[in-house]
């Protein structure tokens, strides 16, 4: 009733007052779009939020998830710590393809200790873009490992923050030791067109997987 943290968005609620003159509101209501999602993963500060923000039609929203007992041991808060939960933030955005189809992008923390939530995240995902900063390439190992094991199509996207790449893509491939069929692309997380092209490579991989699934 009084719980309205976004008073400026009240129009969201008033747009569908059920007591309106339209009568039976059931069939006239907006049908929900089919949601599809792509994961944007990578280490801390590699440009995940920038990537999501570059293509999303809304400015990235943040949601919080609790890391609970499942993370203990990996996280290792130390014996003296009584802390059993950690809150992590996850950014996401979306692109409306059309009235009936909506693409969601979830930027997820790539550190090992957050891996517990990836199962939820990856369920039903089209694929993932693993964002890599060549100066800290090992940050993305957990993400690459996880997606390989989960059988999720993924693409390594080397973010060229400064307009130049420290290493060529073959060297990145060698360092990551990913299979040859995993595409490695370079892109600039700040530019929509560049992010779009990287996502299209992910979608190509997803399409391959979907075709194989249908054939089998």
């Amino acid at each position, binding site marked *: 009733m009084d719980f309205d943290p976004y008073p400026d968005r009240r129009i969201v609620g008033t747009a569908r007052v059920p007591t309106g003159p339209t009568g039976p509101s059931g069939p006239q*209501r907006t049908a929900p779009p089919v949601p599809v999602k792509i994961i944007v993963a990578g280490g801390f500060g590699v440009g995940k939020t920038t990537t999501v923000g570059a293509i999303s039609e809304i400015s990235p929203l943040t949601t919080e998830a609790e890391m609970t007992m499942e993370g203990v041991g990996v996280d290792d808060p130390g014996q003296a710590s009584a802390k059993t939960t950690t809150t992590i933030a996850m950014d*996401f955005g979306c692109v409306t393809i059309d009235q009936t189809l909506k693409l969601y992008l979830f930027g997820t923390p790539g550190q090992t200790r957050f891996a517990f939530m990836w199962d*939820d995240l990856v369920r*039903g995902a089209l694929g993932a873009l693993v964002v890599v900063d060549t100066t800290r390439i090992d940050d993305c190992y957990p993400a690459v490992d996880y997606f390989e094991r989960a059988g999720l199509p993924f693409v390594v996207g080397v973010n060229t923050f400064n307009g130049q790449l420290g290493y060529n893509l073959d060297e990145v491939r060698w360092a990551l030791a990913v299979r040859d069929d995993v595409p490695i692309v370079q892109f600039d997380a700040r530019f929509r067109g560049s992010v779009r092209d990287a996502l299209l490579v992910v979608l190509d991989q997803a399409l391959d997987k979907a075709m194989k699934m249908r054939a089998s």
Partner: protein
Amino acid sequence: MRHPADPDDPAHPAAPGVRPFLGNSGSGVRYQQLPPALPPGPPLGEQGTSLRPFVLTSGRVDGLDPNIGLETQVSSQPGAPSTRLSPEQRAIVHLCGDPLSVAEISARLRMHLGVTRILVGDLRAAGHLDVHVLENDFPDPETIMRVIRGLRSIS
């Protein structure tokens, strides 16, 4: 030597305050202490959004419906009575007049994702929300082609 009248507490055999419920039952001392303790108890002004997550979920931390994902679309059931809902639940129902994803609900209400999923599951069971669960786990090629075409048209 112990006092035979108080075998449970040999250290203070004759002290009247040892067993307040027994010894002072008629004195009213305890009842004078309680009322002053109540008003400063709950910080009334801060109660709204600072409730601990497990309070909102009545202590539940698991039992999530795996079908309720981050991107799952949720819309409110028109006409369902909004009585007896918590403010958080009402806020969710209020927000979902048009279909909204679970992640968006969580972000807009600044509510933990896990909490949001549990409350959405409750509201669905109570008939306040429609949760639009997809049948297949991985999208079909046609859907992916539509996404590809849609993205290509972005400049």
